[in-house]
């Protein structure tokens, strides 16, 4: 089982002021400060969870939402490290989601800000549109134009520069079939979420996930109708948009017993559906059922127990906790256990594992300076482990850290735990993890 996720605090939302009750849970002890990435960077109260809750309370009491306030909310990565460190059970996840929605309603954004947000939310949650940009992106990457374009972009727009830098090197995207049969005696039948960015930009992670599940005795169903789970919208205050995506996801996965998700942010969002639809009688039960059936890849395999034979993968690896896995879902031990079960794999811990790498969904596109500073910090800590391979359950994290390491002149191979397991179960050794062109982070100029 996963480690317990913090449950409701004393002031669980009840009565006629649920948001006020959530705010009241905070006793101002400050235990959340040391793991808050922006507090670590800037050392300011208003860029800490405790300070942001104070700002939310000011707004709740009637202070108009000032641009300064909005700036501090926008600067929050939504990494939820504060939820893990809070002894009083403050549900900061609910507080910030609600607040972001208010910011979107009340805070006028500048034209460039609006354009960037519109572009992000018109592109990323739509696999088909992502597929459309793959071709031009591949051409661009092959042309070597990046060397010329990157410095210009960096001056024009740090956000666009970040987008260019973080785009993964693209190979051919293979579609997964709708059903992949279990190898050996069938132990379970699971649905698999393919995601948006994962499906179009990291297809190798999805195929590895499906293979490992099949090799461990699962029938894997990949429903055709699935689209974006709504995580990006949900964690950016675009609640209605998120609900529309969520409803479609609920419908697509209604007929499977368990849904295995290999992207931390998506899994976290799907487990939030229950709360998202709590006030909608028509959807509440269906949403709760889906949340209850959602499992992270490593969480699912840990519950299922290992059966397939593990072959050695001789590699020194560092495991990085993706925030939406560790803080969002309380999943820390399962991926480590899974990786320790691979013979020959020397697993190293990264210092300050609770602190976010700065990727945080769209954060590195919307707040590129802070994201870079956090990436830099994490890169130094990952570098100190002297690992050859960086493993994380979220493609955003590995792209972010590998890009920060590349800026420091260090290359590191990256992989999802599913890819490591896949190599072990198929007896491929470490070579494909370390040398496959898709896995190696692209060195970029800066």
């Amino acid at each position: 089982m996963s480690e317990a996720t913090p449950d409701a605090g004393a002031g669980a939302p009840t009565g006629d002021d649920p948001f006020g009750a959530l705010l009241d849970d905070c006793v101002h002890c400050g235990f959340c400060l040391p793991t808050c990435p922006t507090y670590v960077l800037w050392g300011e109260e208003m860029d800490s969870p405790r300070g942001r809750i104070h700002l939310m309370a000011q707004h709740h009491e009637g202070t108009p939402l000032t641009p300064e306030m909005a700036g501090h909310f926008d600067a929050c990565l939504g990494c939820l490290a504060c939820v893990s460190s809070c002894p009083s059970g403050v549900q900061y996840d609910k507080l910030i989601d609600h607040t972001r929605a208010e910011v979107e309603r009340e805070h006028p954004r500048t034209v460039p800000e609006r354009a960037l947000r519109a572009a992000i939310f018109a592109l990323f949650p739509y696999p088909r549109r992502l597929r459309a940009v793959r071709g031009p992106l591949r051409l661009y990457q092959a042309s070597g134009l990046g060397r010329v374009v990157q410095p210009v972009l960096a001056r024009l727009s740090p956000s666009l520069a970040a987008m260019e830098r973080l785009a993964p090197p693209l190979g051919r995207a293979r579609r997964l079939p709708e059903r992949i049969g279990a190898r050996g005696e069938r132990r379970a039948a699971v649905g698999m979420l393919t995601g948006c960015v994962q499906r179009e930009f990291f297809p190798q992670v999805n195929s590895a996930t499906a293979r490992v599940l099949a090799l461990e005795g699962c029938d894997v169903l990949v429903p055709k109708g699935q689209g974006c789970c709504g995580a990006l919208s949900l964690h950016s205050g675009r609640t209605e948009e998120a609900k529309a995506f969520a409803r479609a996801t609920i419908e697509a996965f209604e007929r499977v017993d368990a849904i295995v998700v290999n992207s931390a942010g998506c899994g976290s969002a799907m487990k939030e559906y229950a709360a998202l639809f709590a006030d909608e009688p028509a959807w509440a039960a269906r949403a709760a059922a889906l949340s209850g059936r959602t499992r992270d890849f490593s969480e699912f395999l840990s519950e299922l127990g290992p059966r397939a034979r593990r072959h050695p993968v001789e590699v020194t690896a560092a495991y990085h906790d993706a925030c939406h896995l560790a803080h969002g879902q309380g999943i820390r031990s399962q991926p480590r256990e899974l990786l320790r079960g691979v013979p020959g794999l020397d697993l190293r811990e990264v210092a300050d594992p609770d602190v976010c790498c700065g990727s945080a969904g769209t954060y590195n596109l919307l707040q590129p300076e802070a994201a870079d500073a956090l990436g830099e910090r994490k890169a130094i800590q990952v570098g100190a482990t002297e690992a050859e391979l960086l493993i994380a359950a979220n493609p955003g994290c590995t792209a972010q850290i590998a890009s920060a390491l590349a800026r420091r002149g260090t290359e590191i191979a990256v992989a999802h735990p599913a890819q490591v397991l896949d190599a072990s179960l198929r007896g491929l050794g470490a070579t494909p993890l370390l040398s496959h062109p898709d896995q190696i982070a692209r060195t970029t100029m800066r």
Partner: protein
Amino acid sequence: MLQGLAEELRRVLRPDSVIDDPVRLRTYECDGLTVHRARPGLVVLPEAAEEVAAVVRACVARGVPYVARGSGTGLSGGALPRTDGVLVVTSRMRRILEIDLDDQRAVVEPGVINLDVSKAVRPDGYHYAPDPSSQQICSIGGNVAENSGGAHCLKYGFTANHVLACEIVTPEGEIVTLDDGPGYDLLGAFVGAEGTLGITTKVTVRLTRNPEVVQTLLAAFSSIEQAGEAVSAIIGAGIVPAAIEMMDALAIEAAEAAVACGYPENAGAVLIVELDGPEPEVAHQFAQVKALCLDAFEQRVARDDADRALIWKGRKSAFAAVGRISPAYIVQDGVVPRTSLPRVLASIDRLSRESGVKVANVFHAGDGNLHPLVLFDDAEEGAEERAEGVSGAILDLCITHGGSITGEHGVGVDKARYMPRMFTDADLDTMQLLRCALDPAGLCNPGKVFPTPRLCGEIPRVRRGEPEGELY
């Protein structure tokens, strides 16, 4: 007036280190104690001693009061800002400047987090001994101001025992270093002065070698009296544990809800007894301790460091964890002679029953430092006043039993009114002589510690304008 000061300070500090936006200022209106709030007139985030000195001199020149603040976790309102003054926040002064393992010392800036000192030297087998429950976030500068304690201070002593030197900015804006050299122990006076004698800008701390072995016992008793007797028996046997901590049923319930620390069920009280030192000594005394905890219905020995950390997690998160079982509460801090513990606890229980106000007890049993948590519902009319009444009555109990109104949280603004219950006017005047000697203008964290701040001029025998050099 503060607007002019803000502009002046923006020329000295980085512009974004001076905060005057009202919404931002309000996030600094209180520290870990939220019952007292005041929006600071101005907040500055200096990054060097020279910047702190420049801020202090600018304040003194304009007659503006100023208050220092570290991580803002204090529990007596010691860092409560002044609405007409400047809050000097040291959270950006957080570099560990030097680690000297041969001499077992480290030099750190005041904003460095307590636990980060231990983390930095852990691979070499050392740690920084004072361990307040808030050690994961409280700052060394704040620890110096409050002379902070912690569970292991029973054996290792308080912050004062682990600070070898302090560079400070005096209340008049001079940078000086206080150390433990011959002459008056001004360092001793400074540590625990609650920020009224100047602002710390650099601290030399003692590093303690990690003990050879650590053994931790979690003993569950059906009643708090039995647990109290076990404490007396252990200390009476001449054993000096690294820590002896007690929690009652209500505190256990809160900790369990917060961090699932897995304490035995249905315990009226638990004791955490930790022994450390050379292996043979610890083994011998640990057996003695287990035998002395005979009345415990369950004894659990920490299997490894992870298990020990979980036992401590329950204890260390207890204050904030009470937020899970009560909408609001007061964290009290008082001291009684260890031998009076059972009587005082019985009296607290009586107070609680008579008033209908629930009290959870968490304390450093080894040195009689109580932390009663007085629970109330702030939505209920008059509940806060009733809780305040019980909280004050507990302090009276401490005083009548020959104890103190604070063990480690400090007097701050919260307990200044209780000072006359412990001290005569002459006592308080004498203490203020020292303060006036160093802070003649009365601008350095005014309104803290003393119930009635006296103008320095009112006190006879104080000569003003003494050259500072003679003091150090």
